[in-house]
């Protein structure tokens, strides 16, 4: 497979008129896992939100092709339906709405926009239980309001369960490993591998640390600094970064 699911060309983006992404180029082929590493303030989370279409993040130049379509021509919910999944660094709490209801309505909204039939309640619960089991999460938790009362690790596991349910073409995971203990980190790593390691799926893994990359072996590692990719390499680059720090490697 040599199809590029994501092709970012000369991307520029601002938040409140402050320039954060400054001419970023990146290509992610189908079937590959790419990691983006970089120091605080490099623009990692901004990149994730720009690709996810979060209000307040303005694209001022460049283009992004997602699976043959102009990503920026799509609303956030249309990007989801087209197969883009954004894993949040800080998953949002929604009191009064159960996870089951939230995910079932979301998934069915995606399916309808692709011209597919809704999943029935029973079909959806079967799917949700299977994905929860895969991530080592008690399916009973899905009856609770979205993320309310969840620990940091439980929220991140729940993000991965959502990814399993949505079954995206491309997952952009924004510091999914932050705030996780070793067991949760292993579970999340195994979840990414089992859900997203396939010839027609890709992952853009945004992370500070090399730890998660021990479990999810990336095909490519990119270093982001001051809003640009300053170096790219194989998995060994992550180890080099861990050893020598960003300042050395990015210089």
């Amino acid at each position, binding site marked *: 497979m040599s199809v590029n699911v994501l092709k970012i060309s000369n991307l520029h983006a601002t938040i409140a008129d402050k320039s954060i992404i400054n001419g970023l180029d990146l290509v992610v082929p189908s079937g590959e896992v790419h990691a983006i590493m970089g120091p605080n303030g490099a623009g990692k989370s901004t990149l994730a939100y720009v690709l*996810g*279409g*979060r*209000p307040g993040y303005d694209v001022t130049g460049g283009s992004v092709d997602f699976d043959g379509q102009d990503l920026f021509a799509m*609303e*956030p*919910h249309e990007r*989801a*339906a087209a197969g883009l999944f*954004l894993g*949040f660094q800080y*998953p*949002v709490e*929604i*009191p*009064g*709405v159960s996870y089951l*209801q*939230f*995910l079932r*309505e*979301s*998934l069915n*909204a*995606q399916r309808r*926009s692709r011209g597919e039939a809704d999943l029935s309640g029973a079909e959806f619960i079967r799917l949700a239980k299977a994905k929860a089991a895969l991530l080592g999460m008690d399916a009973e938790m899905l009856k609770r*309001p979205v993320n309310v009362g969840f620990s940091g690790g439980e929220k991140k596991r729940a993000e991965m369960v*959502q990814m399993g349910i*949505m079954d995206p073409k491309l997952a952009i995971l924004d510091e999914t490993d932050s705030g996780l203990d070793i067991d949760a980190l292993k579970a999340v790593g195994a979840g990414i591998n089992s859900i997203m390691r396939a010839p027609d799926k890709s992952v853009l893994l945004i992370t500070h640390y090399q730890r998660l990359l021990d479990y999810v072996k990336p095909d490519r590692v990119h270093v982001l600094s001051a809003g640009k990719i300053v170096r790219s390499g194989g998995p060994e680059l992550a180890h080099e970064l861990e050893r020598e720090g960003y300042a050395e490697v990015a210089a």
Partner: protein
Amino acid sequence: MNALPSRKDEAFRYSDIAALGEIWGALATPESMQIAAQQKVQQIWLPSDKEIDVRRVEMTLEAGASAHIFVLATASRYGRIEVDVTLHDGADFQFDAAIIGVGDATLEIVTTVRHVEPNATSRQTVRSVLGDTATGSYLGKVAVSRDAQHSDSVQSVKAMLLDRGATANAKPELEIFADDVKCAHGATVGELDADQLYYAAARGLDPAGAKALLLEGFIGGLWDSVDGDDQGIAALARHALKAVTA
């Protein structure tokens, strides 16, 4: 029949007097509910299909009686729910109400809860969702008599405004003559949370669907404690929310 009230009457301060005038002559005397000592009552007040929908109730709860009232107000032009409750020793009054207004509807809930003897409890929860130029008001008075020690009363009022022209009024009012009582009240007016809306969008919900889901969460908890058949109040509320977010 009494004269038509004006907006100078405190209890009609936010009313649609013109609409009220159209039905004033035909308005029946308030419905009377007497709940005998130790009896338990649950009632679900659904909206009628009339564009002007006024319900007035006077309720007395004898010692140890309890009443739980669930209310949905969605009249398309003018809706008014007026309740006057008298609580005797140890009586318990629970009131869960939703106001959902679109267009230029004026919807109001006006309650007077009188704790006339000791140990009575009352809890009122009102949630409003208002779109377009709709107005939703809650005027709630809790009056505690000199002898009504150990009264415990709570009023919680929250409103969600979906459009610039929508209005919410919340006026909890306390009149307390006893010295050993608990009376809590809180009122908030807000908009839908931008982070929640984006999170829902990122999972594939279109803007209208995301709004409807978040609002259902805001309103939905009201019906959690319905005992037995909810007579369709949850479904009617959901339907009304769809109309607000459409």
